[in-house]
């Protein structure tokens, strides 16, 4: 069997049945599109087809994934434009296409890499659709229903601002490091797992603590809670050393 266009003779694996193209047909196709012969006539058997599929799986699945992400986000936008219950089919199909896009990326790149690629493409697809479908307005037109909530107005002064800064930066940080180190010392996990997960907890807890202390108007409550968390965290972290 000859793989046309390359001129290379190949034998398919014996387990596959081959489906050959007769000479008249192949001559007709080559005459019609001589430059496209490699793609046009390459499917001379399932084995070759499978081989090709393997070769092109990554680019094909990636391209399909990108297309599915774009279509999925576009359908979600259509759902967002419509009203319930008429928009539900768009909503469901949009999320299904996005799930399908992730599946295509998993096929192409495996789960670990596919998740990372998928989330990036999803974000860029959404950015693209939002920018393409932006609304251009006449200056100074704002409907009342578009008015966003205003931040809480609070009387403040320098001592209060400094206290807030100390709470959110220093005390929240001390508490977060205490909890993270307690996790790293005391959790019954492998060394790497407890140290790395404990380390990851620190910025997350610190950030959450910062958000909470800055939004809570009651300074004493935040102070007491953070001092309490710090005490427990450092006690758990340093107790084994003290007792040893």
């Amino acid at each position, binding site marked *: 069997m000859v793989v046309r266009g390359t001129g290379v003779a190949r034998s398919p694996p014996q387990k596959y049945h081959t489906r050959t193209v007769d000479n008249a047909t192949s001559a007709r196709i080559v005459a019609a599109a001589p430059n496209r012969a490699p793609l046009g006539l390459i499917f001379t058997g399932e084995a070759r087809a499978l081989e090709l599929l393997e070769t092109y799986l990554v680019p094909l699945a990636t391209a399909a994934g990108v297309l599915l992400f774009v279509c999925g986000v576009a359908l*979600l936008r259509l759902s*967002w*434009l419509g009203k319930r219950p008429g928009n539900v089919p768009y909503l469901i199909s949009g999320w299904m296409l996005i799930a399908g896009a992730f599946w295509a990326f998993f096929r192409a*790149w*495996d789960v*670990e*890499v596919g998740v990372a*690629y998928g*989330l*990036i*493409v999803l*974000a*860029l697809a959404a*950015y693209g659709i*939002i920018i393409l*479908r932006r*609304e*251009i*307005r*006449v200056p*100074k*037109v*704002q409907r*009342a*229903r578009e008015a*966003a*909530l*205003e*931040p*809480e107005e609070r009387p403040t002064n320098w001592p209060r601002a400094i206290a*807030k*800064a100390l709470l*959110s*930066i220093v005390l929240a*940080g001390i508490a977060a490091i205490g909890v993270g*180190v307690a996790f790293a*010392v005391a959790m019954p996990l492998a*060394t*790497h*797992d407890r*140290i*790395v*997960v*404990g*380390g*990851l907890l*620190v*910025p997350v807890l*610190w*950030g*959450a603590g*910062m*958000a*909470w202390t*800055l*939004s809570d108007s009651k300074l004493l409550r935040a102070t007491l809670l953070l001092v309490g968390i710090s005490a427990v965290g450092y006690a758990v*972290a*340093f107790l*084994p*050393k003290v007792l040893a």
Partner: protein
Amino acid sequence: MHAPLEKARSRKRQFLPPQFVRAMLAGHSALGLAFAALIYIVCITGTVSVFMFELQRWEQPDIAPIDRPLTADEVGAAINAGYAQAVADKAAHDMFVMGPSPRAGHNRLMINYHDHETGAEGSWLASPSGELIARAHAPWTEFVTELHTSLHLPRTWGFFLVGLTGVALLSSLISGILSHPRILKDAFYLRRGGSWRLQEADLHNRLGVWGLPFHFVVSLSGALLGLSVLIVGVLALAAYDGDSEKAFAAILGPRASADETPAPAPDVPAMMRSVEMRLPGAQFTSARIDHIGEAGQVVHLGMRSPGHLALANTYYFKGDGTPLGDGGLESGGIGQRILGLLQPLHFGWFGGLPIKLAYGLLGLALSVITFTGVTIWLARKRDKGTPVPRWEKFWMGIGWGQPFALAASAIAALYGSPAIILYAYLATATLALLVAMIAADMHAAGRVLRLACAVALVFLIVVYLTVWAARIVDPLAWALTAVLAFIAMLMAIPALKRAEARASMLVPAATEG
């Protein structure tokens, strides 16, 4: 006026009570304003740092890139040549070799060595056959990456401040989501040209919400990398007798012992072959040899297997070739794998140029989010009838002054010595602030600085081509120069158009007057 609005809102049961949202918004606003400039500088330099390896090539375009993985013998030859040079430079103590890794965008064979006791060090580029061909020289890339990782402050303080900035960014993401009850209702809105505040808020929220996984991962990994010294320091006090080295060794693998008896340099090719026997298809990415030429030396060999996000797994060997296990960065426990993911996920070093371009766009989006966070506050002040024109101009000076200062520092790197880069950057950033403050209003300030940045970029391109044009052998240099020209155009055209539009708007007014 707001009564019907409040009534309509109260009819629907809200997931987040308005009082909670308003409190969260107040915290989000305070935190954003306090850290805005720092976050912005870290984000914009981080976006540039994604292309660190490409910029290194741009700064030294007379070296041809290497587009294939290296064989064990080639790596061995490079290490031998590097070791001989390190001995000649009296800096043979620790050595780091980084091979080509197209997924990370690194297409060179680079050899670094340093002696931390004397401070002597060297950095070389080698040919694929292992021959040292030129000293590595990329001062501007080094300047930008250091600005991103430590703000050019003393290392410990710099890392801590950048880590704290990462925490502030993470906190802003949390409070931003919690203060955005219309997250679904506004999911696709991007209203331009209407109210200034609504326009900025739409851009801020859309870029923030849809890019959330990226923003979260980047700020979390950045915060952890920045705070690692502090966290490990406390951990060492609790569990490693105060010895941070010991605590780091528990995570990052064995360190060299204190045995200084002379010994032959390690046979890294043999180590590579032993890994290849276990993992056919594994490719060399890097090798770190601590205390090279001493009996206590230890090798950390980076070899990458396909299908993983980590740059490579690290295999540990004694100097005599005895294996000491591996870091499990590709297929170990959850902690080990997270450790392997931190750097590639933070810098986008896992999918070649397409992923880097995506990271560039998403990094730019994060910079825009930071910038618009402040402009929302400025617009709110205007809406309330208490505008703050000085702060408006100041923020334009920061926002558009940074790209201008970075462009000026790149010119300084090309024309002057590396020592003046930081001063050129600081002087230009200060000049940008002064220009902004004396401008008529924030629009004028933004326009002038954008044009200044465009001019600086054009000047940079001219200087670059004057210096390098005849010697460029790396095609990437041309591509990056074209990108710079494109950025200059993006900066200049809208600024010129706006100036034109304002001029045409002023004509009838002047006639009427």
